[in-house]
């Protein structure tokens, strides 16, 4: 019987020595004030406080557990395909027992192919793609996050993250390698406006075909609900008083 707490804290991944080794953090923006209240509502006297929002940055080796062997195998597989590891992989982040490989977008298809075909990797299942919009990250505002699962190699999980700038929101499609991603890429296009080049039919999937804009983006305008009560309206959710 495996240790319960260990399995829970790592999602089944075996625990190594250094599973939490984020390096220089990535600052995606800053938070002002003490309680996250928007301007004029912070009466704490700490309204001028500025705190950077720091995401875990690139980890240094050793990553711990099976992560080192995984990255080595990936590097060897990429070299065999004629792609330099340093060109394809921008950084590796190990955080909270999970590994994220940040891949340059033009190399995503070759990375996906190596992940699927390399016998020691064999990630059969790509559990879709999830978009994230970071308006504060200049030049890489749009992120596409691909979780992979290898059933063959003991249900290991990794994550591949690809970024694209708002001005040029193109990321190569991996539908040719993982057909399961057809609908997932359509959803991410629909919600974030990321254009997956090479997708067989990149059309909207959840929103109506003629819908303007991409709702999950952070700059998508939210609607208020006009309520007839002495001329007052309910403001959009992002303009209401909040403590975030």
């Amino acid at each position, binding site marked *: 019987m495996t240790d319960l707490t260990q399995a*829970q804290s790592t999602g089944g991944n075996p625990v190594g020595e250094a599973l939490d080794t984020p390096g220089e953090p990535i600052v995606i923006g800053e938070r002002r004030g003490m309680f996250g209240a928007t301007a004029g509502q912070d009466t704490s006297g700490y309204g001028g406080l500025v705190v950077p929002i720091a995401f875990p940055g690139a980890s240094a080796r050793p990553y711990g557990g099976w992560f080192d062997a995984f990255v080595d195998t990936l590097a060897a597989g990429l070299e065999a395909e004629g792609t330099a590891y340093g060109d394809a992989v921008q950084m590796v982040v190990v955080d909270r027992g999970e590994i*994220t490989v940040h891949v340059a977008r033009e190399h995503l298809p070759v990375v996906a192919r190596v992940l699927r075909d390399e016998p020691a990797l064999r990630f059969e299942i790509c559990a879709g793609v999830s978009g994230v919009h970071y308006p504060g990250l200049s030049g890489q505002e749009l992120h596409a996050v691909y979780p992979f699962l290898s059933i063959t190699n003991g249900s290991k999980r990794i994550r591949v993250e690809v970024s694209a700038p708002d001005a040029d929101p193109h990321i190569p499609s991996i539908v040719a390698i993982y057909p399961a991603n*057809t609908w997932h890429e359509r959803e991410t296009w629909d919600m974030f406006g990321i254009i997956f080049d090479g997708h067989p039919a990149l059309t909207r999937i959840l929103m109506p075909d003629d819908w303007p804009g991409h709702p999950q983006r952070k700059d998508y305008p939210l609607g208020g609900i006009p309520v007839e009560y002495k001329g007052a309206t309910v403001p959009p959710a992002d303009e209401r008083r909040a403590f975030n």
Partner: protein
Amino acid sequence: MAADTTHATGAAEEYLDSPTLHVSGGDWDDLVDEATSLHEERIVVNMGPQHPSTHGVLRLILELDGETVTETRAGIGYLHTGIEKNMEFRTWVQGVTFCTRMDYLTPMFQEAAYCLAIEKLLGITDQIPQRASDIRVLMMELTRISSHLVCLGTGGMEMGATTVMTVGFRERERVFRIIEEVTGLRMNNAFIRPGGVAQDVSQRAIDLIREMVPEIRRGIRELELLVNENPIVKGRMVDVGILDLTGCMALGITGPVLRSAGLPHDLRKATPYCGYETYDFEVITRESMDAYGRLRVRLDEMYQSLRIVEQATDRLEASLGQPIMVADKKIAWPAQLSVGTDGMGNSLDHIREIMGTSMESLIHHFKIVTEGFRVPPGQVYVAVESAKGELGCHLVSDGGTRPYRAHFRDPSFNNLQATAIMCEGSQVADVIVAVASIDPVMGGVDR
């Protein structure tokens, strides 16, 4: 269609020159005769989005050659409610109330995936009390049974077997009696919370489980006797909706559909969470790769779930009185919720303290309730084995009191992609059976 638009299909007016038949009910033969008289070889039939057999609002666009389906396309999005976007404007705890409504037949799985993801982001996974994990397992397995019962019941009804439906829903009500006793609600429970669960399982609930489990087992047995060797069921389901292991792997299919192709992949065994590795149960597989195999997988899985329910109940009876929430009061709700005779209410002791004796407690209560807790920046992906397959939750935090991004990888959304490969080349009537064997719920697909 103008080339500079992003529309998926042209407007309906563009196809006005081709004849259109509107059918709602009636005899299929009449339709076929009428269509034949038009001398059109290619017939496109729009099934749904409000057809009773489409499990909600799924729209199937079928191209027919006589009775044979030559092309199938699934149109989804009719039930998109923007839950993921909404969650970005609510606190971490309030998010449970939203994600529980995604796949409305498996509320506990969304709650569990979401809460496990938050706990991983907070780094408190190993501080979750054992009793809370046991309650989560109990509730998830009960939900699996109720989801499978609806799948089999509605699947039977779509084939004309109304008794299968009434038996399925009758047994589901028994499961709901337990769930209602424990959570106060039949569906949309918002019961599993970050750090634990909202309410304890009482001795009364344990007694009810002990009373109900044999009855549910008897009901499932009745369902088995009704369908397993039923010649009509077998005639409709055997070798229908075939998807082999290669197809499953290519399309990322998980859950009963994958297990009906023979691969014993179950996240409860592969990457255990909530202590599943300490429970005794088996992963059910079939080799037939068809709708009938999926039916049998689901029936057998319900027995396995009942086994887990019994084990969890034993543990809960032994651990009565132990905590069900993480000790950190900044994350846990400030007071243990207690339900009064009116089904509502909160801890009287706590109200007495914050209203009568301690100003500081009142301030803390107010801040935790209105503002919630903060989660350190970062992202996680946590997957649980829902009744339909791998339910993944990708959560991103920017250090605030709300999720920066919450994405659910719903198993139905992914598995529904297999509709085309299962249906093309088969008869129209088989489409219903094939879709039912995937068990999609549009609330989860469209979110």
